[in-house]
């Protein structure tokens, strides 16, 4: 679109590749013919189709995750030019303005790398289970409408409910550290996942699950599990680990007020802890 980009014929994409967990990582550069309005996904599609690096050498296609390509599914998160974001909404023209001539892609830094740009984010879903991020309805039969809700309450819950568990918030968090358990030979997928879950048991939950706990504590029926959620939030790896760097809210692609959720969680756990002392 800019004058310089119309003249550009190609650009380079440097990708941090890793064949499998435990393997060394290496950089590989690909040369992509320039066209306007590309995004990182279409670049990766082109790489898959040509399977040839910038030196013209044949190589395996780069593995990556994606699904909706509309920034609502949360699958295609990666570290692009040093910053974690969704690759579907990362536009090549903008990225080349950020960093002339080259785009740099890396897998997310806080999750075990599966291959190339694919990471295992199951820890985030397990965290949602820890904070019981659901409404505990009796059953799925017809019992009429749910609780009435003010517009104000809906407007507060809706943004929190847009969280797609993409992991940007925790990847940019200086308090969230990677936990990786290597798979043993002949270990089943399930056994390996169980060991991984055990290893991260006491590790930080991160912003997204904290915010989800606040979402459900705000709902009339959801609040019936509020104490359980606050126990989880004040347990190992809970809200106390937050260091208030506030990167989470800065990188959240959905602009979810994560730091407000964190402060609310701070308030609720404070009251909860004091109550626990006096109710003993």
């Amino acid at each position, binding site marked *: 679109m800019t004058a310089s980009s119309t003249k550009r014929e190609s650009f380079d994409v440097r990708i941090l590749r890793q064949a499998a967990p435990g393997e060394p990582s290496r950089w590989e550069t690909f040369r992509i013919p320039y066209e306007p309005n590309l995004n990182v996904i279409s670049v990766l599609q082109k790489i898959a189709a040509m399977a040839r690096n910038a030196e013209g050498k044949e190589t395996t296609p780069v593995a990556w995750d994606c699904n909706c390509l509309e920034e609502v599914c949360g699958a295609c998160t990666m570290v692009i030019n040093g910053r974690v974001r969704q690759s579907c909404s990362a536009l090549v023209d903008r990225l080349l303005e950020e960093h002339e001539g080259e785009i740099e892609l890396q897998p997310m830094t806080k999750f075990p790398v599966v291959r190339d740009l694919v990471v295992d984010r199951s820890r985030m879903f397990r965290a949602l289970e820890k904070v019981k991020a659901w409404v505990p309805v009796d059953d799925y039969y017809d019992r009429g409408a749910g609780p009435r809700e003010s517009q104000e309450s809906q407007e507060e819950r809706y943004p929190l409910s847009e969280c797609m568990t993409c992991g940007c918030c925790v990847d*940019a968090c200086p*308090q969230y550290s990677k936990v990786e358990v290597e798979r043993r030979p002949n270990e089943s997928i399930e056994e390996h996942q*169980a060991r991984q879950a055990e290893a991260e048991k006491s590790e930080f939950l991160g912003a997204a699950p904290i915010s989800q706990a606040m979402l459900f504590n705000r709902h009339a029926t959801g609040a019936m599990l509020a104490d359980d959620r606050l126990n989880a939030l004040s347990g190992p790896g809970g809200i106390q680990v*937050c*260091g*208030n760097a*506030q990167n989470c809210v800065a990188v959240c692609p959905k602009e979810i007020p994560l730091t407000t959720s964190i*402060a*609310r969680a701070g308030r609720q756990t404070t009251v909860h*802890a004091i109550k626990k002392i006096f109710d003993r």
Partner: protein
Amino acid sequence: MAGTEPSFFVRHEFLIRRLHSLTGIIFGGYVCVHLFVNASIVGGAQAFQKNVLAIHSMGGILPLVEWVFIFLPILFHMFVGIGITVGMIPNNKNYPYEANWRYTLQRATGLYLFLFILWHVFQTHGWFHFDWWLNVAERWGGAQFSPYNAASSIGLIMQNMLVSLLYALGVLAAAFHLFNGVWTAGITWGIWTRPHAQANALKVCLAASVLLGAVGLSAIWGARKIGSSEESIKQAEAIENEMYTVQVEAGLIPPTEHKRAHHADSDETPELTATPASDENPTHPSDED
């Protein structure tokens, strides 16, 4: 392997981190008093010595106050703080946001303050007040501050430019660390929750930290002024000794020889130096520098 019980620190992480926040605030309250008292040196040796003597007039309960509000909180805060800092993964290069810089700066100042406070307390107070230790400490440049010769002894310490600079850095680090810490505590305890409220609180906290930094720097400037010449040190000492004599005689403070300066050329009030037995609680670090 599975089902290993998490360690004591992990199980009580929430409580420990909340106490860390609380002890920081308590010690922070002390730091404010400390820096404001020290800044009175700008008003001259007499004003400063008056404040110091007022504090020491607490006598026997002073150590209790010190332990509850100063030593225990800061020791807990420092060591937990080191633990917290060890686990951080700073990423300011990729995420150069203002709050992220403050996050990293909070930990950097924390580490500096850890070293600075240890050194500063050693240099002025000597850490412990056993006689044999004080002798050792003094040989190593510790225990240089004499509460009953407050302005003159600190003036001497501040004669060294490097020391002054390190103190200035310490004061600024403390001012930032304290009020940025107050701001994060407001989130930790859930006092300010919405972005707008957090932004307002941040403005107030940063203003307070600038103010406290200025107060602290003025104290250093005042001390350097007293220490700027032999003349002014002598003058200050004379004032201090006179105040000491008067207050001891009035029974306002106990006569305590190790809280006084011992310069080679000092030959004043020899009658009071002969009472080493009156030095109570020698094991207590009881210093209000």
